Structure formats: C-alpha cells, structure tokens
C-alpha cells in the first residue's frame, strides 16, 4: 500500500507531494486541480509490469493518442506523459512515496542496432545519422529491497506506429473513469464471470441493495445482442434489466465489481465516484467501500467534487477502523499543492462543519 505520494515531471505536475494516503482516500478540489492526473499517476505506479499499457490507456482516454502525422506519432503521444515547463519537457516522470521509495520512473530514449549490438541514447540527444533508431518509452520500478532498479519494461513502437500491447490480465491496478467501464472497452459481464458463485458476488449484490433493498440476484444474459447485459431479480417481480432500476445501478455495479476484482494487495482508482449516484446512497456506498477494501486488502483512491460525497466519506471514515484520508488538491497558476486530513482532523472537519473543497 502506498502510504504517501510524490509525483514529479508527470503531465501537469512539476512536483506534487501528498503527505498521506489511506486504505481509502478521497481526493477533492475544484476543476483543473489535477484530481484525475493524480489517479492516473497512482494507476501507473500500481500497474507494475503493466505500466506502459496503462500509460497508453491514459493517453487514449484523453484522446491524446490520436495523431495525424505518422512521422510525429511517437512525439505527440509520448510527450504528453511528461511535464513541460516553459516549453522544455522533463526527462523523467517519477512516481514514488514522499521519501522517494518504491519509485516508478518513465522516460524515453532512442534505440538502434549496430550489427548485433543494441545501442541506446537518452532523451534529448538525437541518434547518430544514418541509423534506424526507434523511440522507446521505458518504465522501471525500484526494487522492493530498495537496492537498485529491477525490471526494465520496454515498449517498442512497431514500424506501423502502433504500440505492442501486453495483456492487461494480472495487473493489480484498475482505474474506473467517470465515463464508466464500457468506454474503456471492458465488458462488465467478463468481470462478473470472475466473481460469480464466490463471496465477492455477495459483496456486489450487497452493494446494489443500497439502491434496491429487495434485490436478490444478478444474472448476465445475452438477449439478442452482441454483449451480455445485467438482469436483476427483485423480490416479488419478474426479472428486469438492471439498468431499469435507476441511473445509479450501473455506476454502483461498476464500482463494486472493480473493487472486488482488482485482487488482493491491489489498487482501485475511481474518478468521480459519485457520478450518477443519489446523495442519499453515498454514506452506504462509502461504508461498503471501507469494509470491502479492508477485507480484500485493496487500496482505494477516489475523486469527487460533490460536497455530499465528501460529507458521506467523512461519516463512513469516522465509523470505520481502517484509515480514511481526505486529500485536498489546490492550484495556483502552474503550481499544485495538497493538504491531507486524517484521524482527529477528519473528525474536526465533520464536527465543526468545515467545508473542504
């Protein structure tokens, strides 16, 4: 579990430190203070060997992956991962805890072959004339032992300009964007297959009961379409599409499924967790997130800009033994900062009705 966070040279962040992260962390702040970027950074960090495909998804998600000039393909995409100050981009994007431990570094270089010998040059220096150099994006992560660097993960560009895409299965990190999983090309039914007939299925049904207390079962059925959809069995009623039970149902299903499928020791990131959820459900949603995160050993980081969601989080955090941390992001020009509230201070905020936005 990442106990604190420092991000340097990554996207909008020149240097951002967050003194404390909890088992469950809620990140708040106005628009454009970098809430989503923080989630992306932690997602990369927690993705481990899958950091590069996670990086690619980040660019795709923000439509920054699209390029018009084939020759510029590498530049346009990769550059966007790195912070720029006055037109100069940082050499390295670095994500670690505030002590600098457990660091993940991203950087680019040029690689080419001289006969049988592989050669490379760091970003900023052009490759020699006449060689067929390729741009590489490299992610490397500090050893658990803290001695030196382990695993260098290289993602080469093939001549056609498309990245080689390693399998996503096995990553211990998952990011649920505000737009939902379908926009990510993830089929909810596939996730459901992972949990069906396990204890985790019960957790998901329990989550959905927050909105529909009489819910008995969920089944994924193929109803003449290309993909399966969720059907709900509610006590005393014939089966009906889950979607028809309200806007919040799909969101809640995705939040719960994401939480129970990320895996033990994993990290679950949710952008705008309350998107589509009615404010009266939020305390119960948070309570479930706290309980499930603790039980399955998952670290959860979510964002919101809703005051109801913050209040509900505080309430759930104060009533649960595992630590909840509220992080407020702020911005002044190009400078980003953070304030963290936990334990007694979280209690003060709630007791004194102090608005933290």
């Amino acid at each position, binding site marked *: 579990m990442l106990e604190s966070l420092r991000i340097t040279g990554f996207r909008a962040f020149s240097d951002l430190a967050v003194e404390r992260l909890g088992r469950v962390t809620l990140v708040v702040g106005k628009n454009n203070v970098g809430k989503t970027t923080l989630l992306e950074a932690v997602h990369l960090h927690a993705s481990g060997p899958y950091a590069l495909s996670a990086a690619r998804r980040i660019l795709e998600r923000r439509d920054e992956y699209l390029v018009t000039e084939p020759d510029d393909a590498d530049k346009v995409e990769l550059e966007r991962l790195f912070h720029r100050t006055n037109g100069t981009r940082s050499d390295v994007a670095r994500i670690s805890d505030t002590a600098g431990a457990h660091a993940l570094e991203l950087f680019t270089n040029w690689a080419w072959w001289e006969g049988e010998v592989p050669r490379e040059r760091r970003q900023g220096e052009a490759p020699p004339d006449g060689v067929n150099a390729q741009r590489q994006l490299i992610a490397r992560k500090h050893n658990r032992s803290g001695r030196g660097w382990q695993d260098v993960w290289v993602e080469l560009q093939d001549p056609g300009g498309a990245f080689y895409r390693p399998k996503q299965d096995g990553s211990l990190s998952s990011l649920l964007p505000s737009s939902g999983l379908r926009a990510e090309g993830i089929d909810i039914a596939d996730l459901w297959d992972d949990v069906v007939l396990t204890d985790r299925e019960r957790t998901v049904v329990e989550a959905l009961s927050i909105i529909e207390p009489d819910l008995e079962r969920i089944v994924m059925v193929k109803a003449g379409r290309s993909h399966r959809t969720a059907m709900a069995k509610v006590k005393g009623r014939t089966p009906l599409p889950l979607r028809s039970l309200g806007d919040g149902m799909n969101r809640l299903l995705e939040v719960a499924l994401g939480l129970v499928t990320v895996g033990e020791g994993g990290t679950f990131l949710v952008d705008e967790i309350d998107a589509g959820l009615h404010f009266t459900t939020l305390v119960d949603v948070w309570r479930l997130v706290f309980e499930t995160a603790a039980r399955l050993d998952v670290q959860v980081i979510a964002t919101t800009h809703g005051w109801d969601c913050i209040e509900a989080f505080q309430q759930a955090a104060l009533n649960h033994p595992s630590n909840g941390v509220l992080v407020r992001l702020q911005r002044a020009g190009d400078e980003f900062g953070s304030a963290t509230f936990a334990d007694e201070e979280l209690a003060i905020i709630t007791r*004194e009705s102090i608005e933290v936005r």
Partner: protein
Amino acid sequence: MSEPHDRILLVEGRDDAEVVKQFCNHHGIDNRRLFRIEVKNGIEALLDDLRVRPQTHVRVLGAIVDADTDPELRWRQLGDVMRRSGYELPQRPSPSGTYLPAPNVFLPRIGLWMMPDNRVEGMLEDFLLRLTHDGDRLVTRAGKTVDDIPAEDRRFNPVHRSKATMYTWLAWQADPGTPLGQAITKRYLDPSRDPAPAFRDWLLALFTPAPTP
C-alpha cells in the same frame, strides 16, 4: 451580494458574532460583503477549527478569542494549532491585533484578536465594559453589587465577574434585558472608546481586499 466563502471570521459564540455585526453596523462597515462570521461552540471548538481551516479554500481567516484568565496560555494554544499549517506566531500578540502573512500561495492570511485588548486577561464583556460612557455611575455600582455578593451565594465562576457585571449593568438600562450586541445599537455603549478603534482597524485591515494591481 452573498457573503464571501473564502474570507471567514471565527468567533467563540453567538454574543461575539452579534457584537461584531452591530459594531460593524455602527462604523459603517459592510461586514456581509467583507467576511462571513462562523460561530463556534467555545474556545476548544475554535482552536480545533483553526488547526485545519487554513488548509481549506479560505483566503483570509480571522479569529476572535477571549484571553480569559491566562493570556500567555491562550497565545501558546493558538501557536500550537497554527504551527500545524506552518504559521509562526510572534512572542506575544500585537496590541493592535496580530496579522500573520501567508507562508505560501496556498495558505490564507490570518488575523488574531485576543479579547479584550490583546494584552490583559478578560473576555468580550471586558471589552464592552470599556466602551461604557465616561462617568457612567451605574458601571461602578454594577461592579460593586456583583462584588458585594457573599461568596457562598455566588453561583458564577470568578472568571465570569465581568460577564456578571455587564449583564447586571444591562438590566438597569432604559430597556432592561437588552442583548449585548444591541447595547451598541441603542447607544448604551460608545464604540469610539479604546480599544474599539484598534479593533475596527484590525478588522478592516484584515478583510479589506487588497487593490488589484
């Protein structure tokens, strides 16, 4: 125009809030435009609030606290909670009210006023007793009446002597039972007497927005 959400004045109780409002009214200060008053439930709640409030969106933060029986202790308590956010208090409060500049771009400017006058022990009621008119014989009499109560009959904590005196005095005005704040409106008190002008200047200097360059 609605009250600003990023310029906040914390006070210990409703009386403090009411006095500040009437005081501003008397001096023609548009308090609702300049700052929002938040009433805390006593000094402990106010100190708790001060511990975390600078870390929020607030841009200017003022606090009015009572010195009570030990001004030095109160000042140390304030120093302890402000240090959490990176503020260092001076050795002792400035007689004209204390200002703390923002340590960085994300933190607010802060102003502290310790009742009655940033020097001596006391509370809001001591501040108000000093605003009574020259030669008001009822002030002396109220004080004497309170002091003449035999110890065994006294139901109030000695700390609250000035409070007992103030309310005794208020009971003897043209409109007995006038609330503290309205004593200013009804001109029982004279808000041009010391230390009121210093208090007015502190409020204005703290909350008047700097002219945009």
